């Protein structure tokens, strides 16, 4: 089937999409956007978090066909040209990145939190990131990064 979807502001088209395929597969394998990561494929890890019509979702749990006619924003769409989003910058500065695999999902989840809550409390940050697993950092630097980004925005 054909899927027409706006990704990071750009109209994209994919043909011969399998009907049971996920939005994550569509983004990574057909549209050349490998930012969202494929790990658990069951919504447990949050590595594939993207915005679908401005709502953060696990791209692995959205059928590609459900994204037809809708707007997707991936981690690739957060920076403006070479200018990183403040959340991305804060992750770099706070050392919130080790192997980096979970980072795109965490960045999108944190970006959404700061859009909704300008100065989140620690429990609010933990709750917002509860669906994103990181196996390297122990999360402390990630919390630092979100606090830093909140102060700067």
């Amino acid at each position: 089937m054909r899927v027409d979807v706006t990704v990071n502001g750009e109209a994209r088209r994919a043909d011969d999409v399998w009907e049971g395929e996920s939005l994550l597969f569509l983004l990574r394998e057909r549209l050349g956007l490998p930012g969202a990561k494929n790990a658990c494929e069951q919504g447990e890890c949050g590595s594939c978090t993207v915005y679908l019509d401005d709502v953060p979702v696990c791209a692995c749990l959205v059928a590609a066909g459900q994204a037809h006619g809708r707007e997707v924003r991936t981690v690739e769409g957060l920076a403006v040209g070479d200018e990183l989003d403040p959340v991305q910058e804060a992750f770099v500065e706070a050392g919130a990145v080790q192997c980096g695999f979970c980072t795109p999902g965490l960045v999108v989840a944190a970006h959404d939190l700061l859009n909704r809550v300008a100065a989140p409390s620690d429990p609010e940050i933990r709750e917002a990131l509860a669906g994103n697993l990181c196996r390297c950092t122990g999360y402390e630097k990630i919390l630092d990064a979100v606090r830093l980004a909140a102060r700067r925005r």
Partner: protein
Amino acid sequence: MDFLRPDTLAEALALKAEHPDAVPIAGGTDVMVELNFDHRRPAALLDLTRVAELRQWSERAGVVRLGSGVPYARVIDELGGALPGLAAASRTVGSPQIRNRGTVGGNLGAASPAGDAHPVLLTVDAVVEAVSARGTRLIPATEFYLGVKRNALEPDELIAAVLIPRARGPQQFCKVGTRNAMVIAVCSFAIALHPAAARVAAAIGSAAPTPRRASAAEEFLSGELTAADQWRSPRPLPEPVRRRFGELVAEAASPIDDVRGTAAYRGHALAVLARRALGWAWQDYQDHRDRWGGSV
């Protein structure tokens, strides 16, 4: 595989009648896992996310009609006052990403014994509105769950909505898992006090082939409360009453040993959950009896 994309409920029902083996998909939080892991290869997917009628809720004459496609995140944000038990259960579902997509309709469609909404729906006299091209059928939640992942829907039926009376008394939900987020319940418990009817409803999840009411516990507690005139002049509940209630709730279960926990643990944990949840609900009633409109 076909990918069916109705824009209206009428279209969806026509497609479901024509393709009774089509699997409805809304938030995808169950269906996509089965597809991703090759556990299921349905002949067709029926995408319900474009059907606006399913994504609305309304309230009339004290009954909330919750469209089957309203995600948990909106139940939490918009219905915490009218449906406190369901909102409490919704807060425990998955993660923010999952709550943005997952729906009560999907919980009912999947009919997993561990679904978080089920125990609550059983305690609040919820009614499932099943629709097909043939018409509408109202199925009480108490008659909806037939077995592990089996429900009372006919092959040509879809869940349009759940009808839930606005809360007239305190409601609580709690569950046990390995952490606070992303947990499939090891066991879960819901309680609703119905002061106007001098009645308590209690139900368990993830501790039997289906979610189910704990009838003996309900009758015991309702009897104790009435005998002690507690509805009219609520006082702290005697510890033996709270404890016995917990034991009777645990006895309602027929739990199994599985990867998430043993049967013995589930029984123990249910008794603890029930005792605690009753404590919270009763405290609420003692503190806010006026808000719940007095009683008998």
